[in-house]
């Protein structure tokens, strides 16, 4: 098999069959870079869109420095003991209407949310779910129209509140 050597002028003018191959290599690299750029840009756009299209919370509750009182502690040790919530881990959030919402950790190391009605001294909703599940509690009533509900979703240190109304109540 005979090798085809670079022709004369390849070095001076840059033109030759070797030059054609170099051009092909350069073009392939450019195409690969372009594809990679498109992938990166698309990923950024997709993640931005995903964040932008995510439903905005109707309210956000921040943590507050609040100590649990004996009423809550008694409820957690009584009718809510099934959740095995560790009372020493209770952390309060800003109130939402008549509701107090608390975060905690249970005996299985799962994060928990508890909605407590101070007016009636009732635990309205409790949820403990192992990570990485989304942790939320749903509450109906409390100034919501019939058939509607408020969903309190754990969002880092804060709580996002989403209001869901039945169709025709918008």
């Amino acid at each position, binding site marked *: 098999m005979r090798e085809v050597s670079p022709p004369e002028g390849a070095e001076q003018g840059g*033109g030759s069959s070797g030059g054609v191959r170099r051009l092909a290599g350069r073009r392939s690299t450019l195409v690969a870079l372009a*594809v990679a750029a498109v992938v990166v840009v698309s990923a950024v756009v997709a993640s931005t869109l995903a964040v932008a299209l995510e439903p905005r919370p109707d309210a956000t509750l921040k943590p507050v420095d609040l100590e649990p009182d004996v009423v809550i502690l008694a409820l957690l040790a009584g009718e809510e003991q*099934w959740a*095995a919530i560790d009372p020493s881990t209770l952390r309060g959030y800003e109130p939402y209407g008549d509701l107090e919402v608390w975060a905690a950790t249970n005996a299985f190391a799962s994060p928990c949310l508890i909605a407590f009605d101070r007016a009636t001294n009732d635990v309205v909703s409790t949820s403990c779910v*192992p990570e990485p599940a989304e942790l939320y509690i749903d509450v109906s009533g409390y100034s919501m129209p019939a058939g509607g509900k408020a969903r309190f979703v754990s969002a880092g240190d804060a709580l996002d509140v989403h209001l869901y109304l039945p169709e025709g109540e918008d």
Partner: protein
Amino acid sequence: MRSPATSSAAERELRELRLRAYGPHADIDGDPVALARLEKLEAAHALAAHGTPAEELPSSALDSPPGRQASPVALATASVSVGDTPPSRTRPTAGRPRWRAWLIAAALVVILGLAYGGTRLVGDHPEATLRPTGAEPDTRVYRMLVYAPDLRIASSTLRSFGTYRDIDIWAADDAFGNPCLLALDRSVDGLLGAECTPPEGELTMDVGVWPLWERDFGADLPDGSVIRFVHRGDAVEVYHFATGDR
């Protein structure tokens, strides 16, 4: 035999084509005919540079003006003249624009596919997907509605999604038109969960494996684990969140 005039014209043409290929305003990529012609001239030039007598060069390779196809015989001759050089080493550039277009199209398809499926690929995958079974509710199912009077579930809308780990799963609508999910443990005739959520929210129902609960389900899951049922379209997806997984 090639005349000096022909040779000079070919060299001029080669220079012009090289300019179109490597010059500051290179545009030869969009002209496959010119590109093929350049390859042909380069091959002939390479042979000439290595002392191949000009008489042996395929005159057709030099004489074919741009824009006109050389005859198949001439192309074959030229191919043989450059020795054992595989055609694939010089031909790919002629088809590159089309190849590149296909590559970009394929990349876009892949990107769209990734964007569409990315969240599903990255997100949790259901342990199971339940479909409507068409089973009719019996009296035990109707009876469990008594345990959730606040939900105002329309019993005529009950639809079975079968049984998952001894848990009966039913869907229904409430009096407000909201979709609902219900979980029944037949072993204790108990309602394990009942949720109704307006359509703008995701309808989910958690059933916990709590040691203090009398139950038959979830014996193989660690205490504190949660089975989450998510209503999506005409299916119910089941997710497990076991304690100790993280």
